[in-house]
């Protein structure tokens, strides 16, 4: 698909909007449908689109396979780390009230806690989806002499 100019330009124009939309889905998940999981999938889809159009190598220059594998593990760490952080602040595991800046309104911390753990979900799902895509897409080229 290297010569299809409409596809190439279209993908290039769409990709930033898809990535922005993924961030919107994540940060607006409290108010509208969506959340970390959906955002991670959409983010991965943006890079899958770029890889389909521009080739796997170009995308792997931006997102090395090692990096996305690290993302998959990092997300779980963020999620579990949020729980450890609430414990360090003297609350239960994953009791987000610990993040409240105003002790009179403990539920204020829920917002940040949810955003943090959803970020963990986002990073894991993104890393997993892109890694699996790399593995599938990279297999067909095994016979290349190189």
């Amino acid at each position, binding site marked *: *698909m*290297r010569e299809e100019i409409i596809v190439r330009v279209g993908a290039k124009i769409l990709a930033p909007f898809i990535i922005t939309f993924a961030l919107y*889905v994540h940060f607006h*998940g*409290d*108010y*509208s*449908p*969506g*959340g970390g*999981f*959906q955002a991670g*999938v*959409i983010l*991965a*889809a943006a890079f*899958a689109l770029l890889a*389909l159009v521009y*080739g*796997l*190598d170009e995308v792997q220059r931006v997102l090395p396979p090692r990096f996305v*594998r690290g993302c*998959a*593990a990092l*997300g*779980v760490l963020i*999620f*579990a780390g949020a*729980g450890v952080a609430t414990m360090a602040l003297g609350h239960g595991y*994953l009791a*987000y009230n610990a993040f409240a800046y105003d002790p009179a309104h403990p*539920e*204020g911390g*829920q*917002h940040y*806690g*949810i955003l943090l*753990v*959803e970020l*963990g*979900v986002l990073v*894991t*799902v993104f*890393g*997993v*989806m892109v*890694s*699996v*895509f790399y*593995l*599938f*897409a*990279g*297999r*067909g*080229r*095994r*016979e*290349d002499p*190189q």
Partner: protein
Amino acid sequence: MLLTLLAATAFGLVRVRNLFAVVMLAGVYSLLSAGLFTVMDAVDVAFTEAAVGAGISTVLFLGALALCGTRESKPVHTPILPLFVVCLTGIALVYGTMDMPPFGDASNPVHHHVADHYLEESEHEIGIPNVVTSVLASYRGYDTMGETTVVFAAAVGVMILLARGRRRTREDAPGEGSASPPTGGRSTRETPR
């Protein structure tokens, strides 16, 4: 209407022998399911279905097709025994639903265990309008953490499976090269070098 389209798509899925068409129909099926979920006010589920089912998994299926060709081989067995098993399972499942409470009844137990509390109190306790998010990330935070770990574990499994194949083909590349299945015509992912 949506259900009719869904059934038509499923029928097409079974009949069509061209795997490329099957992948596309599977994507259509996911998109129709997403529409159905939206009609039933389950927008979060619909969102996920549209993104995963119609988006990513279609791409992954295409990646698999590029490896194994796009024609489905003819079945070698007669479909009588499978048909019998499927019918029997279907009857058993329908029989199982006899004991279920009526669909959509507001007095069903599932709507009165913790759902009332979540719907009424989450505005105070969590302070965000989307109840799905507050249940998912706060009330059921442990579950979501487990799910995240499961996703991670699944990816590790896929990596172990596929990465091992890669090493073996590299070791005995000459023999493997001729034995591997020919790549299909629609291998969009194969970048020319």
